[in-house]
């Protein structure tokens, strides 16, 4: 199986009374809480952590896109990915992803992803989320009634821009371009970089992923117990459509905290987990459901009781009945897997097998976890957990993994060296 290291890049210094004094971590979170000089250190710590994860052997590092969000400091994940392309060598770069309808024209995504693919020697995984209501409809002002149609059209345009050899005109419902001809082109051109779709629990998305042969990713913050219904729904739908149970058709997000013992794990990870589930998911309910964002088919399924849980779980602003913010409930609910290496191994094997998920995206940094603790969690996972779970699903071929240039053909990426000449350094104030 593939073990992927995911960073949300949360702002780590939201005040203790944040939930009392502020209505939302997202959309209208107050600017006075953001200290750019502290963010300088956060960004650099986070990027160190991503590079470290690559160094200790994770199959991929993952970044994602959020806007006006106190737990996601990556409005442009592409900036981080391009830096990672230069600071890692063999690790896949999973950008999870670019919300297509937010880019005007959407060929911008085709271009930037092609750049990352070229710079990295063909290591890009291209994620195409619709985007959350908070990101798309509120922070970015997109019309919720038009968002999905714009998304699908943008997808068609990006894909055509990657695969069409000649300059073409695109006359869509929302996008008109006379001359589409992106430079650069992706290295992965057979036919294009792997496309992965993070989604909630809607049947339409599952069907679309099956039809397009894309990886479906369920990125909930509520762990494997809550995710079981959704993933079972996904596999049932695949069976109905005559698709095999190749676990690499799916991705799943899971928080983990590993230490020498369960008690030590509780000591280390309680504060960051409670920070995340308390402060970071404090989203004002008024940003939960812009009308039109949820399709009528999904609403219908929700009212009929089939999908309510899944649809709600994917959306932190609705939270459903899940509001656990103390460590006991967080762990009991399966939001965060904690324990000694062997205990974590057992749980990871259980998660992967029960959900049948070949791409496990791990959050080993969350909330206000420090760089030291994050690196400890990451190293211990890589050394003591990874070797004991890697064998899972070895019978299946991952047809949705990047196909980079041969190693010998790739550029040698120079490691960073601090300038020795004082004249070369940026002058301090």
């Amino acid at each position: 199986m593939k073990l992927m290291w995911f960073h949300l890049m949360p702002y780590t210094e939201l005040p203790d009374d944040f939930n009392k004094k502020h209505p939302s971590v997202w959309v209208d979170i107050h600017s006075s809480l953001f200290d750019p000089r502290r963010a300088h250190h956060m960004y650099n710590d986070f990027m160190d952590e991503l590079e470290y994860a690559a160094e200790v052997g994770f199959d991929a590092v993952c970044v994602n896109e959020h806007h006006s969000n106190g737990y996601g400091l990556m409005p442009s994940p592409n900036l981080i990915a391009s830096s990672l392309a230069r600071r890692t060598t063999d690790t896949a770069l999973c950008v999870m992803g670019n919300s297509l309808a937010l880019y005007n024209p959407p060929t911008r995504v085709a271009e930037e992803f092609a750049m990352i693919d070229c710079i990295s020697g063909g290591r890009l995984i291209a994620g195409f989320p619709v985007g959350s209501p908070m990101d798309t409809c509120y922070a970015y002002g997109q019309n919720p009634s038009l968002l999905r149609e714009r998304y699908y059209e943008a997808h068609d345009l990006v894909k055509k821009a990657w695969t069409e050899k000649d300059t073409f005109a695109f006359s869509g419902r929302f996008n008109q371009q006379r001359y589409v001809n992106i430079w650069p082109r992706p290295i992965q051109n057979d036919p294009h970089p792997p496309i992965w779709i993070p989604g909630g629990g809607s049947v339409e998305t599952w069907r679309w992923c099956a039809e397009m042969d894309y990886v479906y990713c369920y990125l909930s913050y509520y762990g494997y117990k809550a995710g079981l219904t959704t993933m079972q729904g996904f596999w049932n739908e695949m069976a109905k459509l005559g698709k095999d149970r190749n676990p690499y058709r799916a991705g799943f997000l899971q928080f983990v905290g590993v230490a020498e013992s369960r008690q030590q794990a509780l000591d280390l990870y309680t504060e960051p987990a409670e920070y995340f589930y308390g402060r970071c998911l404090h989203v004002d309910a008024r940003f939960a459901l812009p009308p039109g964002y949820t399709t009528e088919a999904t609403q219908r399924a929700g009212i009929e009781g089939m999908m309510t849980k899944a649809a709600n779980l994917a959306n932190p602003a609705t939270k459903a009945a899940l509001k656990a913010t103390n460590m006991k409930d967080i762990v009991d609910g399966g939001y965060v897997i904690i324990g000694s290496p062997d205990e974590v191994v057992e749980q990871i094997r259980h998660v992967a097998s029960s959900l049948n998920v070949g791409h496990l995206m791990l959050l080993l940094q969350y909330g206000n976890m420090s760089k030291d603790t994050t690196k400890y969690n990451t190293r211990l996972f890589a050394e003591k957990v990874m070797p004991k779970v890697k064998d899972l699903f070895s019978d299946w071929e991952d047809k949705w993994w990047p196909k980079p240039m041969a190693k010998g053909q790739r550029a040698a990426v120079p490691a960073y060296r601090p300038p020795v000449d004082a004249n070369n350094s940026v002058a301090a104030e």
Partner: protein
Amino acid sequence: MSDPKTETVELNGFPCRVWSKGNGPKLGFLAGLGGLPRWIPFLDELAKSRTVIAPSLPGYPGALGHTALDTHLDWVLAVRELLEKSGLTGADLVGASVGGSFAAEMAAIFPGQVKRLALIAPFGLYDDTDPAADPWAQRRDNVAGLMCADPARWQALVAQPEGANSIEWPIEMVRAAEAAARAFWPLGDTGLAKRLRLIEAPTLLLWGEKDAVLPPSYARKFAAGIKGRTRVETVADAGHLAYLDRPDAVANAVLAHLA
């Protein structure tokens, strides 16, 4: 309260319900946020002396087809066609909230379409210095109080009637909100300010004094922009959908203007 007559007209291949009731000269009504999930006392008041015709705009209760409308031009042409098919060409027109914005567009762009105009807190403008509330970013329990001075009036409008399909009814209510969002997201500003000077029809502007969505200052902006004769009246004890809060008072003001 007797039932209105129900007809269905087709618009872009989708059905739109047209309700009518009463006798006398025709009077069109384009409803506000939420549309008309049921017949309301305000329309009965108007029907005492006029033939009231209330077509449902695409996506609002009784009508489909908002999904076919992408641009403001699409919407404006759809409303014009709907008025024609409802037999309202050249009639007096009353519009409220989102429907009020379209009523104003009709009078501006197709002057022959509208004889006299009454607007109840119409959408269409946005003023940075006196911002309108965001009707699409509300906690569920805040909506009724935002729409009406008396929240019970809104709740009565959208309450599921006995015998209604318990799955489709709530979806219809969301669809009405989506249809409004589709045309007016995110600020309610459709550029109508540029077209107000084209409105020559005598226009009554009614505003609930407790309108929590659109500030009363917007009434003055409409009045200042419209070329024809205008009159601004405030409705006491009424919110954004003043015709739900004070059906008699709003109907009387409208009928007096159209007399």
